[in-house]
């Protein structure tokens, strides 16, 4: 069965990872490289075990466009980069096809070892969410 493992970040996190000055310690190039290597190895391991369905990293929150209906005009309203600097948004995900939620949780727990500056690691977490089956779970009760 399929699960999505989600990780989160703020615009601030994205900026820091890019080496920008934010008032908090920025990532050194070595730290950024170590994280990249860890993620590549993590994903490669999942791919090799046959458990990985798909994975993506999402671009910075500032690049987001939000689309909402305008009820009066009936036209879509499009907003750029609607997030506050410190609001956590989806940063990346892995979809895994595994034996059950315990295995998915185990995989997500491996992300605990992601190398990163201490203040980033202190607030880091991942969510594990079951994906809906297309039909079985939409049955009429």
């Amino acid at each position, binding site marked *: 069965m399929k699960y999505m493992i989600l990780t989160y970040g703020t615009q601030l996190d994205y900026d820091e990872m890019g080496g920008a000055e934010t008032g908090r310690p920025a990532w050194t190039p070595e730290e950024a490289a170590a994280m990249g290597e860890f993620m590549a190895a993590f994903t490669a391991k999942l791919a090799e075990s046959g458990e990985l369905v798909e994975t993506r990293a999402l671009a910075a929150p500032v690049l987001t466009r939000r689309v909402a209906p305008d009820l009066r005009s009936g036209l879509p309203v499009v907003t750029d980069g609607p997030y506050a600097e410190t609001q956590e948004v989806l940063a990346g995900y892995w979809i895994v096809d595994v034996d*059950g939620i315990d295995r998915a949780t185990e995989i997500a*727990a491996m992300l605990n070892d992601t190398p990163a500056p201490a203040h980033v690691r202190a607030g880091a977490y991942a969510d594990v969410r079951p994906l809906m089956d297309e039909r079985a779970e939409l049955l009429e009760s």
Partner: protein
Amino acid sequence: MIAPLGDLLRELAPQVLGAVVRRYGHFDTAEDAVQEALLTAARTWPVRGLPDNPRAWLITVAARRLTDLLRADEARRRREWTFVALRDEPAPRDVDDSLVLLFLCCHPALSVPAQLSLTLKAVGGLSTAEVARALLVPEPAIARRITRAKAAIRDSGAPFRPPSRAEWDDRLAVVLRVLYLIFNEGYASTAGPSLQRAELAAEAIRLARLAHRLLPTDAEVTGLLALMLLTHARRAARTAADGALIPMDAQDRTLWNAGEIAEGIALITAALPSGPVGPYQLQAAIAAVHDEAPDAAATDWPQIEALYGLLLRIDASPVVRLNHAVAVAMARGPAAGLALLDDVPAASHRWYAARAHLLERAGDPAGAREAYLAAAARTASLPERRYLRERAGRLTGE
């Protein structure tokens, strides 16, 4: 509830619970959610008809109910999950969820009473009230026992998956013991006015059939199912109309269930040559020798003695030593049996009862009478006590 629907729901219950727990975790709450889904099905299916896929329907309804229950539980503490390091060697993936559920309910972290209650409820699909009635324990006590067991499983962080190869044998042994104890509880109830609680024994057989279907090549699982069938087959002959116990040598063997005997013999015959011989196979083989004899006098006691000799090598517990001594007495005369019996610790009423029988056969009525009364004073079963007193009474010479 109409009977076939009840049977269908009980068969689906462990599969549905297994699927929901595997998918979403939360064993404790999932169990409640599945119960509610089963109740909904029992109410609506007779009116609206069976859904196309009853199992998927139940999983869907139970999963929805689970989310409701979890949301209602806002105040619950953040759950702390423990992770077990990756196992040496993962067990096969294509294991039926009912089997994983059975392993979970028989988790070594639980006490034996908790294992029995939880297995009957979660795998057997019995209601809390039914489990309470089956185990002769008040319903609130069973409810607490089940709640505690579920909490213990949650706190242990036991992952929902079959045991690894390294721990497989130990874990399976616990599962088999739990099923065996459920059967025993039904067959030779340790308390109360009725000697047999045939429903509980039948439930144990149903669970053993499930285990056998899931692990068809495991010879001990097969042996356990055979043992249950070969023993259960004698139930109609085991008690008189007034509830009194009838010993095997005095039973009306035409009352034995020929179908169950044939099935049990076929199972044990297939299992014995297939792998390492374990205690359940040996006990089943012994029961088969009894069941094959057309009357008590025709019993092949030398073969039974030999089988107990093999069993002693695996399990030299007082119960096995006692049975071995009785078999020796039957094969070679009471004196040889009594000599062996003297070395077995006299812990239970069965030791005194066996000694009484052998003394009676050896021509020592006074000693036999004393032993019968000693046994009667030590048994918790009322029919057994009546039987033992009656045997003692016969020896007073009245």
